[in-house]
């Protein structure tokens, strides 16, 4: 594969643009990353509370059924009949007692075991399955599943380490900080991004861009990001956390990101938009966490969400937002969360630009697949902690993970 030979060993600070468009790279990613030794976010426990509740999701190009078993456990099964490969479930969500393929009525239990084959014994003396056919050999492919803080993860590979080890201590702590209570879904968004999936993941890990691309805050001067904040990386650099902290006195102090504050010429007519109720026990106002390859866990003021990204070919991807509150939220905090969600989502004041910026790169780089980016803000390394968010360390960590899996 051209990409792997032409790209200097170990360099993760300069990436050839062909990675965003080449169909062969896309195919290899499906095999090495999406079916490889990584954990994918599937859905929330809260979405399938009762036995038989299921949700269908995509793990890269592989369709998956996540279903609550009778015993209360969660199973994740490849949504592809063992007979001729039809989708078993083709609705987004539902409730079933067993899984029946519509094509020839092969039936599976909620753990994916084949329990019945229509006309298995034939009709009268005729037909039927060949002798020696064993139901046990023809179940649905099953994913390993792990659950943490109400989030259900799955992996198609036997090689993937346990979830805790996969995430590492810093990332577990970051997750536990936000997901402090049973969750409640406030709604969903789906956003189609006109770009390769990696451009969105880079964007999310790119703490350098936040105050520069999203000029809303500066324009309105509603919150001048304070100096508090920083970056954390998992030990292997694959995952990251970026956060902002309000100064102890609650006031605003001049900091790095005020560099463009001269632009502030407007005031919000309704400043209620920026109201924040502290609920997580600290002064952190914004915390964006990524779990390789495609999960984002978000706290922006009181707007909480998980985002799962699904590649849809080399030049398109779909970002699925699950917007959250806590199960015990009262009406007031729910109203606050709903209002604050104007900041995020496909129409979010400080997120909509992330919907188009990847497309700007996709368009600009198509003509010159051999040209390369230059991501040396904060050097070439990926230290586990940075006090400044003006660094591309987490993006380099992403490329480190990518190279490790793709070159394996």
């Amino acid at each position, binding site marked *: 594969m051209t990409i792997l030979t032409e790209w200097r060993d170990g360099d993760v600070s300069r990436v050839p643009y062909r990675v965003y468009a080449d169909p062969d790279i896309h195919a290899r990613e499906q095999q090495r990353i999406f079916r490889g030794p990584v954990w994918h976010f599937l859905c929330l426990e809260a979405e399938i509370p009762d036995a038989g509740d299921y949700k269908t999701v995509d793990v890269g190009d592989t369709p998956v059924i996540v279903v609550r078993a009778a015993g209360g456990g969660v199973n994740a099964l490849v949504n592809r009949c063992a007979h001729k490969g039809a989708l078993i479930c083709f609705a987004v969500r539902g409730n079933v007692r067993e899984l029946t393929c519509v094509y020839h009525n092969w039936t599976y239990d909620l753990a994916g075991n084949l329990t019945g084959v229509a006309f298995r014994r034939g009709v009268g003396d005729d037909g039927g399955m060949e002798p020696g056919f064993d139901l046990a050999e023809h179940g649905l492919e099953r994913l390993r599943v792990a659950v943490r803080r109400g989030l259900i993860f799955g992996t198609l590979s036997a090689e993937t380490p346990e979830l805790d080890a996969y995430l590492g201590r810093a990332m577990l702590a970051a997750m536990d900080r936000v997901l402090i209570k049973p969750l409640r879904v406030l709604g969903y968004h789906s*956003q*189609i991004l006109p770009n390769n999936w990696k451009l969105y993941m880079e964007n999310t890990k790119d703490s350098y861009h936040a105050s520069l691309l999203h000029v809303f805050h500066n324009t309105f001067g509603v919150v001048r990001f304070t100096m508090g904040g920083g970056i954390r990386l998992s030990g292997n650099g694959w995952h990251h956390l970026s956060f902002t902290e309000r100064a102890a006195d609650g006031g605003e102090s001049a900091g790095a990101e005020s560099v463009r504050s001269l632009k502030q010429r407007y005031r919000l007519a309704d400043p209620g938009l920026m109201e924040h109720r502290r609920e997580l026990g600290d002064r952190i106002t914004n915390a964006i966490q990524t779990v390789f390859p495609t999960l984002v866990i978000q706290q922006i003021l009181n707007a909480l969400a998980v985002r799962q990204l699904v590649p849809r070919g080399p030049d398109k991807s779909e970002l699925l937002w699950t*917007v959250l509150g806590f199960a015990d939220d009262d009406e007031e905090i729910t109203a606050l969360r709903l209002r604050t969600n*104007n900041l995020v989502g*496909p129409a979010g004041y400080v997120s909509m*630009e992330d*919907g188009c910026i990847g497309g700007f790169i996709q368009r600009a780089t198509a003509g010159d697949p051999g040209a390369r980016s230059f991501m040396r803000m904060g050097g070439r390394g990926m230290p586990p902690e940075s006090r400044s968010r003006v660094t591309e360390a987490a993006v380099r960590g992403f490329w480190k993970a990518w190279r490790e899996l793709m070159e394996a």
Partner: protein
Amino acid sequence: MSGGGPMARIAHLHAAYVHAIDDDRLEDWPGFFTEAGRYRILTRENHRLGLPLAVMRCDGAGMLRDRVTALRTANIYAPHCYRHMTAAAQLVETGGSAHRVRSNFTVIRIMETGEMTVFACGEYRDRIVETDTGLRFAERLAICDSRRVDTLLVVPI
């Protein structure tokens, strides 16, 4: 269209609303609402599931105006415009000075470079009230049939 039922005047309001947006006279947009007017862009998926999340949610004139100010001064996106098609307006309920109306819409998004896309389709559910200055939306819900938003949503629909 005379002084018959309110439908002719409602049709006029509906038309004026979409012309303002399609003409890029977005500064006029908050004026179609009452001072406390509510505007929501919802998806059918969330609406059917009883989930309250909106893609865009404005409660009152301040939030409506902030949307316009932000898109003019802060937000970044490739230049584009909309073309609204509307159809099947129907008076659901009327009681003196307030009317409940539903109608269908399709929004085609046109990029400066010429790409045309069916960006959204769905249903408006309106509460329209008589005011001194004519009919105004006390509430306009735009319930989009698709759960997907292509790229981003910045101009109201």
